[in-house]
């Protein structure tokens, strides 16, 4: 009713002029993901962690622990590569996304987004989707480095892609924890610290670097419940052979769980943040 009154007064009103288009949330999220990609393209330096992290991890782990754990660096590369894949995917999105959200909120850009008639979750989803480029870069670099060092996929290409996909799914889902941290915490430095503290037990408290049975009991207990271990098992199965179905299912379940809990929490925290 009121829009008619406004129109009489000669003011153009968006809602009345423009018919509602469909799939608005998806479209708005993709537009904002595009924004995020443009920003990344403009300053590719922000991808350097995704670029160098996999290389450093592989070199470090293989040549540091290889001899001790497996007797040879070559044998160890086959063992550790799937784990490094999972860890890289976790770190690739998690470290950056919370930070970029925090920066965005501070700069006032998000205020404008929040005053626009778009879904409350669109800016967050847009940022997280825009960060998918990080996973792609990290995965490509990791596989290339692994191959140069002598790693060989024992299965087939679809399985290797599935391994990367599973690791990405978990990284993407757990990335929402960091989105929540980025929305809740005001200081950028603290965001990074909290993210690091949270990630380390998850990313390193696994069977990625050494077999579980070499650990003390309490750590074995943690490693067994740590969802990242499931992802490492699944990736190992998919890349060098071994059981896949159970760990893969667990990884997907955990991913769905993280997403279901932390994405709504992050969106509601963002909605309430003033």
């Amino acid at each position, binding site marked *: *009713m*009121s*829009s008619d*009154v*406004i129109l*009489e*007064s*000669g*003011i*153009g*009103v*968006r*809602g009345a002029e*423009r018919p*509602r*288009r469909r799939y*608005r949330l998806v479209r*708005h999220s993709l*537009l*904002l993901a595009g*924004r995020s990609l*443009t*920003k990344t393209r*403009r*300053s590719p330096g922000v991808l350097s962690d995704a670029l160098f992290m996999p290389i450093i991890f592989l070199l470090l782990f293989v040549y540091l622990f290889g001899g001790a754990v497996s007797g040879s660096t070559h044998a160890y590369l086959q063992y550790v590569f799937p784990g490094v894949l999972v860890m890289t995917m976790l770190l690739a999105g998690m470290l950056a996304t919370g930070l970029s959200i925090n920066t965005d909120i501070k*700069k*006032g*850009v998000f*205020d*404008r*987004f*929040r*005053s*626009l*008639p*778009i879904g409350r979750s*669109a800016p967050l989803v847009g940022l997280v989707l825009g960060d998918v480029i990080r996973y792609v870069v990290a995965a490509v670099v990791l596989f290339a480095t692994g191959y140069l060092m002598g790693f060989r996929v024992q299965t087939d290409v679809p399985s290797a892609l599935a391994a990367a996909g599973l690791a990405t799914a978990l990284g993407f889902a757990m990335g929402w924890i960091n989105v929540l941290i980025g929305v809740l915490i005001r200081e950028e430095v603290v965001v990074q610290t909290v993210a690091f503290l949270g990630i380390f037990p998850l990313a390193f408290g696994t069977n990625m670097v050494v077999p579980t049975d070499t650990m003390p009991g309490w750590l074995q207990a943690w490693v067994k419940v740590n969802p990242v271990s499931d992802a490492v098992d699944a990736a190992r199965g998919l890349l060098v052979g071994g059981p896949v179905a159970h760990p893969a299912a667990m990884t997907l379940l955990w991913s769905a769980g993280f997403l279901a809990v932390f994405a709504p929490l992050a969106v509601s925290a963002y909605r309430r943040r*003033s």
Partner: protein
Amino acid sequence: MSYAFQANGLVKRFGKTTALAGVELAARPGTVLGVLGPNGAGKTTAVRILATLLRPDAGTAEVCGLDVVRDAAKVRELIGLTGQYASVDEDLTATENLVLIGRLLDMRKAEAQARAAELLERFELTDDAGRRVSTYSGGMRRRLDLAASMIGRPAVIYLDEPTTGLDPGRREEAWRLIRSMTDGGGAVLLTTQYLEEADALADEITVIDHGTVIASGTPAELKRIAGGQTISVRPRDPGRLAEVAVILHAVSGREVESRRDMVSVPVGGDGDGAFTEAVRRLDAAGIGVTELSLRLPSLDEVFFTLTGRHTEEVAA
């Protein structure tokens, strides 16, 4: 036609702090409401409530008859916001910024591009449209920020301290552009700490302090309440201060105030006549001056008149 936006009895608390303690604001379409107050008076909180970014603890706010809480989604279709901190993306170009907002407002790509080009032209940014905003000067960024809030031809535009941090030349330029923002019939809510700015832009001014309205009216009414304007003269030769004081007293009939090398006197109502007379007499007496001004009372002086306190005490 009724109000473009209207707030009644707005209350907002943050923990123990009461940011708003019952604020009334309203403006008709095509007019500018200036919300004047010192830092911490509650200006930004009021804007954020009207822009659907905050919920009030009590009271109501409406934009074109729609409640900002119940009908928030519809209200967002009607408003444009330029926040206190530049709310444009520094890593994008000016065009990219505006087109993105247009498309988020569900414009087709071509339509958003046309609207962006039109606004860039109007805000004199066409030549720099393809440059990243991070290379912009403060004034250009502000202009882009103003343009960004107009993309969707909003019925109500909120400008939160739009000239803060701009040097005087840039401020005049921003004023000129802000004045044109109501041309389409939209209403503008502008917050400011400067009576001069509110006087230059607003049709009505609401003065707020400690989250309550302490005065409201047209700029002329407010200036009358605040004791009119002040003539200040700084003679080139400090030895002639006494002569200047005599002239100013004669012109205004009020008590003069001498401070170091400057003499000031308040002039009631419209100060223009008194000012001209003062200039004529100074000239006739052959007194050279290094500064000669007719100025509005500062916010601090308005506050002192209205509340008996200075703004520093208010902010504390």
